[in-house]
Protein backbone atom coordinates (compact mmCIF):
# COMPACT_ATOMS: atom_id res chain seq x y z
CA UNK A 1 0.00 0.00 0.00
CA UNK A 2 2.92 2.32 0.74
CA UNK A 3 4.16 2.07 -2.83
CA UNK A 4 0.68 2.65 -4.29
CA UNK A 5 0.15 5.70 -2.07
CA UNK A 6 3.53 7.22 -2.96
CA UNK A 7 3.06 6.46 -6.65
CA UNK A 8 -0.42 8.02 -6.90
CA UNK A 9 0.54 11.25 -5.14
CA UNK A 10 4.04 11.81 -6.55
CA UNK A 11 3.06 10.91 -10.12
CA UNK A 12 0.05 13.24 -9.86
CA UNK A 13 2.48 16.12 -9.12
CA UNK A 14 4.75 15.19 -12.03
CA UNK A 15 1.92 14.59 -14.52
CA UNK A 16 0.16 17.73 -13.25
CA UNK A 17 3.31 19.77 -13.98
CA UNK A 18 3.55 18.37 -17.51
CA UNK A 19 -0.15 18.72 -18.38
CA UNK A 20 -0.43 22.10 -16.63
CA UNK A 21 -3.13 20.79 -14.31
CA UNK A 22 -1.14 21.25 -11.12
CA UNK A 23 -3.76 23.61 -9.68
CA UNK A 24 -6.42 20.91 -10.17
CA UNK A 25 -4.17 18.45 -8.35
CA UNK A 26 -3.75 20.85 -5.44
CA UNK A 27 -7.51 21.43 -5.31
CA UNK A 28 -8.12 17.68 -5.27
CA UNK A 29 -5.59 17.34 -2.46
CA UNK A 30 -7.30 20.00 -0.35
CA UNK A 31 -10.96 19.30 -1.02
CA UNK A 32 -11.42 15.58 -1.74
CA UNK A 33 -10.79 14.62 1.90
CA UNK A 34 -14.29 16.01 2.51
CA UNK A 35 -15.67 13.20 0.37
CA UNK A 36 -13.94 10.63 2.56
CA UNK A 37 -15.62 12.15 5.63
CA UNK A 38 -19.01 12.09 3.89
CA UNK A 39 -18.59 8.41 3.03
CA UNK A 40 -17.51 7.53 6.54
CA UNK A 41 -20.34 9.54 8.15
CA UNK A 42 -22.93 8.02 5.82
CA UNK A 43 -21.73 4.58 6.87
CA UNK A 44 -22.25 5.23 10.60
CA UNK A 45 -26.02 4.76 10.69
CA UNK A 46 -26.25 1.66 8.55
CA UNK A 47 -23.19 0.13 10.19
CA UNK A 48 -24.57 0.76 13.70
CA UNK A 49 -27.94 -0.72 12.76
CA UNK A 50 -26.65 -3.96 11.23
CA UNK A 51 -23.90 -4.56 13.75
CA UNK A 52 -26.60 -4.08 16.41
CA UNK A 53 -28.79 -6.74 14.76
CA UNK A 54 -25.82 -9.08 14.33
CA UNK A 55 -24.98 -8.66 18.03
CA UNK A 56 -28.48 -9.85 19.00
CA UNK A 57 -28.04 -12.92 16.78
CA UNK A 58 -24.64 -13.54 18.33
CA UNK A 59 -25.88 -13.36 21.93
CA UNK A 60 -28.84 -15.65 21.24
CA UNK A 61 -26.53 -18.25 19.69
CA UNK A 62 -28.17 -18.02 16.27
CA UNK A 63 -24.88 -17.07 14.60
CA UNK A 64 -23.25 -20.23 15.97
CA UNK A 65 -26.03 -22.45 14.64
CA UNK A 66 -25.89 -20.83 11.20
CA UNK A 67 -22.08 -21.07 11.20
CA UNK A 68 -22.24 -24.81 11.85
CA UNK A 69 -24.61 -25.28 8.92
CA UNK A 70 -22.64 -23.18 6.45
CA UNK A 71 -19.06 -24.02 7.50
CA UNK A 72 -18.64 -27.31 5.55
CA UNK A 73 -19.02 -25.36 2.28
CA UNK A 74 -17.12 -22.24 3.23
CA UNK A 75 -14.20 -24.05 4.85
CA UNK A 76 -13.33 -25.41 1.39
CA UNK A 77 -12.45 -21.85 0.39
CA UNK A 78 -11.48 -20.40 3.78
CA UNK A 79 -8.96 -22.96 4.93
CA UNK A 80 -7.52 -21.27 8.02
CA UNK A 81 -10.75 -20.33 9.84
CA UNK A 82 -11.23 -22.20 13.11
CA UNK A 83 -14.09 -24.68 13.35
CA UNK A 84 -17.32 -23.18 14.67
CA UNK A 85 -16.13 -19.60 14.14
CA UNK A 86 -18.89 -16.94 13.88
CA UNK A 87 -16.99 -15.68 10.82
CA UNK A 88 -18.67 -18.35 8.70
CA UNK A 89 -22.17 -16.91 9.27
CA UNK A 90 -21.09 -13.36 8.63
CA UNK A 91 -19.24 -14.31 5.44
CA UNK A 92 -22.33 -16.16 4.18
CA UNK A 93 -24.55 -13.16 4.99
CA UNK A 94 -22.04 -10.81 3.35
CA UNK A 95 -21.89 -12.78 0.10
CA UNK A 96 -25.65 -13.35 -0.14
CA UNK A 97 -26.47 -9.69 0.58
CA UNK A 98 -23.91 -8.66 -2.07
CA UNK A 99 -25.35 -11.12 -4.60
CA UNK A 100 -28.81 -9.60 -4.12
CA UNK A 101 -27.43 -6.07 -4.51
CA UNK A 102 -28.06 -5.10 -0.87
CA UNK A 103 -24.74 -3.27 -0.44
CA UNK A 104 -25.97 -1.42 2.64
CA UNK A 105 -26.36 -4.68 4.53
CA UNK A 106 -23.47 -6.49 2.85
CA UNK A 107 -20.76 -4.09 4.03
CA UNK A 108 -21.58 -4.34 7.78
CA UNK A 109 -21.77 -8.16 7.55
CA UNK A 110 -18.45 -8.23 5.70
CA UNK A 111 -16.81 -5.96 8.24
CA UNK A 112 -18.14 -8.09 11.08
CA UNK A 113 -16.66 -11.14 9.35
CA UNK A 114 -13.32 -9.33 8.95
CA UNK A 115 -13.34 -8.51 12.67
CA UNK A 116 -14.06 -12.17 13.51
CA UNK A 117 -11.10 -13.22 11.35
CA UNK A 118 -8.92 -10.54 12.93
CA UNK A 119 -9.81 -11.76 16.41
CA UNK A 120 -8.59 -15.25 15.50
CA UNK A 121 -5.43 -14.09 13.73
CA UNK A 122 -2.12 -14.62 15.47
CA UNK A 123 -0.44 -11.57 13.98
CA UNK A 124 -2.80 -8.57 14.15
CA UNK A 125 -0.79 -6.40 11.73
CA UNK A 126 -0.77 -8.77 8.76
CA UNK A 127 -3.71 -9.74 6.55
CA UNK A 128 -4.24 -13.50 6.83
CA UNK A 129 -5.08 -15.74 3.86
CA UNK A 130 -8.75 -15.76 4.89
CA UNK A 131 -8.84 -11.96 5.13
CA UNK A 132 -7.34 -11.69 1.63
CA UNK A 133 -9.87 -14.23 0.34
CA UNK A 134 -12.84 -12.37 1.84
CA UNK A 135 -11.50 -9.11 0.43
CA UNK A 136 -11.03 -10.60 -3.03
CA UNK A 137 -14.60 -11.94 -3.00
CA UNK A 138 -15.84 -8.44 -2.18
CA UNK A 139 -13.66 -6.54 -4.65
CA UNK A 140 -14.91 -8.88 -7.37
CA UNK A 141 -18.39 -7.58 -6.49
CA UNK A 142 -20.55 -10.57 -7.34
CA UNK A 143 -24.08 -9.32 -7.99
CA UNK A 144 -26.99 -11.06 -9.71
CA UNK A 145 -28.71 -7.93 -11.05
CA UNK A 146 -26.66 -4.73 -11.60
CA UNK A 147 -29.40 -2.42 -10.35
CA UNK A 148 -27.44 0.86 -10.39
CA UNK A 149 -26.35 0.48 -14.01
CA UNK A 150 -29.83 -0.53 -15.14
CA UNK A 151 -31.29 2.49 -13.35
CA UNK A 152 -28.81 4.73 -15.19
CA UNK A 153 -29.68 3.15 -18.57
CA UNK A 154 -33.40 3.60 -17.83
CA UNK A 155 -32.86 7.28 -16.99
CA UNK A 156 -31.32 7.72 -20.46
CA UNK A 157 -34.36 6.01 -22.08
CA UNK A 158 -32.56 2.88 -23.21
CA UNK A 159 -34.63 0.65 -25.51
CA UNK A 160 -33.77 -2.52 -23.67
CA UNK A 161 -32.01 -1.76 -20.37
CA UNK A 162 -32.33 -5.33 -19.06
CA UNK A 163 -30.42 -6.97 -21.92
CA UNK A 164 -27.17 -6.41 -20.05
CA UNK A 165 -28.29 -8.64 -17.14
CA UNK A 166 -27.23 -12.04 -18.55
CA UNK A 167 -23.87 -10.89 -20.01
CA UNK A 168 -23.10 -9.05 -16.73
CA UNK A 169 -23.99 -12.14 -14.71
CA UNK A 170 -21.64 -14.27 -16.81
CA UNK A 171 -18.80 -11.74 -16.47
CA UNK A 172 -19.27 -11.16 -12.73
CA UNK A 173 -19.28 -14.94 -12.15
CA UNK A 174 -16.04 -15.34 -14.10
CA UNK A 175 -14.44 -12.48 -12.13
CA UNK A 176 -15.71 -13.88 -8.82
CA UNK A 177 -14.39 -17.39 -9.46
CA UNK A 178 -11.06 -16.04 -10.72
CA UNK A 179 -10.73 -13.90 -7.56
CA UNK A 180 -11.15 -17.05 -5.45
CA UNK A 181 -8.74 -19.11 -7.57
CA UNK A 182 -6.16 -16.29 -7.64
CA UNK A 183 -6.36 -15.90 -3.84
CA UNK A 184 -5.77 -19.62 -3.39
CA UNK A 185 -2.82 -19.51 -5.80
CA UNK A 186 -1.25 -16.46 -4.16
CA UNK A 187 -1.70 -17.90 -0.65
CA UNK A 188 0.55 -20.77 -1.73
CA UNK A 189 3.25 -18.79 -3.54
CA UNK A 190 3.26 -15.59 -1.44
CA UNK A 191 5.15 -16.05 1.78
CA UNK A 192 5.80 -13.37 4.35
Amino acid sequence: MNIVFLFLILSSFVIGLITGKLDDVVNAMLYSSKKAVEVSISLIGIMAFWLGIVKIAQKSGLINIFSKIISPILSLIFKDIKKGSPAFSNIALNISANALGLQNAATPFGIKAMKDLHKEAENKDIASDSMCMLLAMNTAGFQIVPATVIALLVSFNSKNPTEIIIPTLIVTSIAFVSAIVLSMLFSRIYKG
Partner: protein
Amino acid sequence: MKEILSAISVMLLPLIVAVILIYAAYKKVPAYDSFIDGAKEGLFVSIKILPYLVAIIVSVSMFRASGGIDLISSHLSIVLHYLKIPVESLPVMITRSLSGSATLGLLSDVINTTGVDSYATKLSSVIVGSSETTFYVLAVYFGAIGVKKIRYALIVGLLADIVGIVAAIIVSRYFF
Protein backbone atom coordinates in the same frame (compact mmCIF):
# COMPACT_ATOMS: atom_id res chain seq x y z
CA MET B 1 -35.96 -13.87 -13.34
CA LYS B 2 -35.57 -10.21 -12.48
CA GLU B 3 -39.00 -10.16 -10.79
CA ILE B 4 -38.22 -13.23 -8.69
CA LEU B 5 -34.88 -11.76 -7.64
CA SER B 6 -36.31 -8.42 -6.65
CA ALA B 7 -39.01 -10.23 -4.65
CA ILE B 8 -36.29 -12.18 -2.81
CA SER B 9 -34.32 -8.96 -2.25
CA VAL B 10 -37.34 -7.25 -0.72
CA MET B 11 -38.16 -10.24 1.49
CA LEU B 12 -34.65 -11.16 2.60
CA LEU B 13 -33.79 -8.35 5.00
CA PRO B 14 -37.13 -8.33 6.89
CA LEU B 15 -36.82 -12.12 7.11
CA ILE B 16 -33.29 -11.96 8.56
CA VAL B 17 -34.27 -9.30 11.11
CA ALA B 18 -37.49 -11.14 12.08
CA VAL B 19 -35.75 -14.51 12.55
CA ILE B 20 -33.01 -12.91 14.67
CA LEU B 21 -35.51 -11.07 16.91
CA ILE B 22 -37.87 -14.03 17.32
CA TYR B 23 -35.01 -16.38 18.19
CA ALA B 24 -33.64 -13.84 20.70
CA ALA B 25 -37.08 -13.61 22.36
CA TYR B 26 -37.27 -17.42 22.47
CA LYS B 27 -33.82 -17.59 24.10
CA LYS B 28 -34.74 -14.70 26.44
CA VAL B 29 -31.80 -12.58 25.26
CA PRO B 30 -32.21 -8.83 25.96
CA ALA B 31 -32.57 -7.67 22.35
CA TYR B 32 -32.43 -3.93 23.00
CA ASP B 33 -29.33 -4.01 25.18
CA SER B 34 -27.54 -6.33 22.76
CA PHE B 35 -28.48 -4.06 19.87
CA ILE B 36 -26.98 -1.01 21.60
CA ASP B 37 -23.78 -2.96 22.28
CA GLY B 38 -23.40 -3.89 18.62
CA ALA B 39 -24.44 -0.46 17.37
CA LYS B 40 -21.66 1.16 19.42
CA GLU B 41 -19.24 -1.14 17.67
CA GLY B 42 -20.67 0.06 14.34
CA LEU B 43 -20.04 3.67 15.29
CA PHE B 44 -16.41 3.01 16.19
CA VAL B 45 -15.79 1.02 13.02
CA SER B 46 -17.09 3.83 10.81
CA ILE B 47 -14.79 6.34 12.52
CA LYS B 48 -11.86 3.92 12.41
CA ILE B 49 -11.99 3.56 8.63
CA LEU B 50 -11.92 7.35 8.06
CA PRO B 51 -8.09 7.72 7.88
CA TYR B 52 -7.91 4.85 5.37
CA LEU B 53 -10.67 6.40 3.26
CA VAL B 54 -8.94 9.80 3.30
CA ALA B 55 -5.67 8.20 2.11
CA ILE B 56 -7.34 6.31 -0.75
CA ILE B 57 -9.87 8.92 -1.87
CA VAL B 58 -7.43 11.86 -1.75
CA SER B 59 -4.60 10.06 -3.59
CA VAL B 60 -6.95 8.68 -6.27
CA SER B 61 -8.62 12.10 -6.72
CA MET B 62 -5.21 13.75 -7.12
CA PHE B 63 -4.14 11.19 -9.71
CA ARG B 64 -7.38 11.71 -11.62
CA ALA B 65 -7.08 15.51 -11.47
CA SER B 66 -3.52 15.38 -12.83
CA GLY B 67 -4.74 13.74 -16.02
CA GLY B 68 -2.93 10.50 -15.20
CA ILE B 69 -5.87 8.38 -16.32
CA ASP B 70 -6.09 10.25 -19.64
CA LEU B 71 -2.37 9.62 -20.10
CA ILE B 72 -2.81 5.86 -19.65
CA SER B 73 -5.87 5.99 -21.92
CA SER B 74 -4.03 7.68 -24.77
CA HIS B 75 -1.31 5.04 -24.69
CA LEU B 76 -3.73 2.13 -24.55
CA SER B 77 -6.15 3.49 -27.14
CA ILE B 78 -3.87 2.39 -30.00
CA VAL B 79 -3.99 -1.19 -28.72
CA LEU B 80 -7.77 -1.03 -28.30
CA HIS B 81 -8.23 0.36 -31.78
CA TYR B 82 -6.24 -2.56 -33.14
CA LEU B 83 -8.42 -5.06 -31.21
CA LYS B 84 -11.61 -3.29 -32.45
CA ILE B 85 -12.71 -2.39 -28.92
CA PRO B 86 -14.47 1.00 -28.63
CA VAL B 87 -11.98 3.54 -27.28
CA GLU B 88 -14.82 5.38 -25.50
CA SER B 89 -15.04 2.53 -22.98
CA LEU B 90 -11.38 2.84 -21.99
CA PRO B 91 -11.68 5.49 -19.22
CA VAL B 92 -14.41 3.35 -17.62
CA MET B 93 -12.12 0.30 -17.66
CA ILE B 94 -9.22 2.15 -16.04
CA THR B 95 -11.29 4.03 -13.45
CA ARG B 96 -13.47 1.07 -12.41
CA SER B 97 -11.04 -0.22 -9.76
CA LEU B 98 -10.16 3.26 -8.47
CA SER B 99 -13.35 5.24 -7.91
CA GLY B 100 -17.01 4.21 -7.93
CA SER B 101 -18.59 7.64 -8.26
CA ALA B 102 -16.15 8.68 -11.00
CA THR B 103 -16.93 5.49 -12.92
CA LEU B 104 -20.67 6.21 -12.92
CA GLY B 105 -19.90 9.72 -14.17
CA LEU B 106 -17.75 8.30 -16.95
CA LEU B 107 -20.47 5.80 -17.90
CA SER B 108 -22.87 8.75 -18.28
CA ASP B 109 -20.27 10.40 -20.54
CA VAL B 110 -20.11 7.28 -22.72
CA ILE B 111 -23.92 7.28 -22.98
CA ASN B 112 -23.96 10.98 -23.87
CA THR B 113 -21.28 10.75 -26.55
CA THR B 114 -22.09 7.39 -28.18
CA GLY B 115 -25.81 7.01 -27.45
CA VAL B 116 -27.63 4.87 -24.92
CA ASP B 117 -28.00 1.84 -27.23
CA SER B 118 -24.46 1.88 -28.65
CA TYR B 119 -22.02 -0.99 -28.37
CA ALA B 120 -19.65 1.16 -26.28
CA THR B 121 -22.46 1.85 -23.78
CA LYS B 122 -23.35 -1.83 -23.47
CA LEU B 123 -19.73 -2.91 -23.02
CA SER B 124 -19.15 -0.17 -20.42
CA SER B 125 -22.36 -1.10 -18.60
CA VAL B 126 -21.28 -4.74 -18.35
CA ILE B 127 -17.88 -3.67 -16.99
CA VAL B 128 -19.40 -1.33 -14.39
CA GLY B 129 -22.14 -3.78 -13.35
CA SER B 130 -19.88 -6.79 -12.97
CA SER B 131 -17.27 -5.33 -10.63
CA GLU B 132 -16.71 -3.39 -7.41
CA THR B 133 -14.36 -0.50 -6.63
CA THR B 134 -11.33 -2.48 -5.46
CA PHE B 135 -9.53 0.43 -3.76
CA TYR B 136 -12.63 1.52 -1.83
CA VAL B 137 -13.46 -2.01 -0.63
CA LEU B 138 -9.84 -2.45 0.44
CA ALA B 139 -9.86 0.81 2.44
CA VAL B 140 -13.15 0.02 4.18
CA TYR B 141 -12.58 -3.67 5.01
CA PHE B 142 -8.93 -3.53 5.99
CA GLY B 143 -9.38 -0.10 7.59
CA ALA B 144 -11.98 -1.57 9.95
CA ILE B 145 -9.45 -4.00 11.39
CA GLY B 146 -6.37 -1.83 10.87
CA VAL B 147 -4.00 -4.35 9.27
CA LYS B 148 -0.76 -2.78 8.10
CA LYS B 149 0.56 -5.46 5.73
CA ILE B 150 -2.04 -6.22 3.07
CA ARG B 151 0.20 -8.85 1.38
CA TYR B 152 -1.22 -9.97 -1.99
CA ALA B 153 -4.76 -8.60 -1.43
CA LEU B 154 -4.47 -5.62 -3.81
CA ILE B 155 -2.67 -7.60 -6.53
CA VAL B 156 -5.36 -10.29 -6.51
CA GLY B 157 -8.14 -7.67 -6.52
CA LEU B 158 -6.65 -5.88 -9.54
CA LEU B 159 -5.85 -9.11 -11.43
CA ALA B 160 -9.45 -10.27 -10.95
CA ASP B 161 -10.60 -6.87 -12.28
CA ILE B 162 -8.47 -7.36 -15.40
CA VAL B 163 -9.88 -10.87 -15.89
CA GLY B 164 -13.34 -9.28 -15.56
CA ILE B 165 -12.61 -6.66 -18.23
CA VAL B 166 -11.27 -9.24 -20.68
CA ALA B 167 -14.32 -11.43 -19.99
CA ALA B 168 -16.61 -8.42 -20.50
CA ILE B 169 -15.03 -7.71 -23.90
CA ILE B 170 -15.40 -11.32 -25.07
CA VAL B 171 -18.92 -11.83 -23.67
CA SER B 172 -20.17 -8.47 -25.02
CA ARG B 173 -18.87 -9.29 -28.49
CA TYR B 174 -20.87 -12.50 -28.41
CA PHE B 175 -24.11 -10.97 -27.05
CA PHE B 176 -24.35 -7.54 -28.71
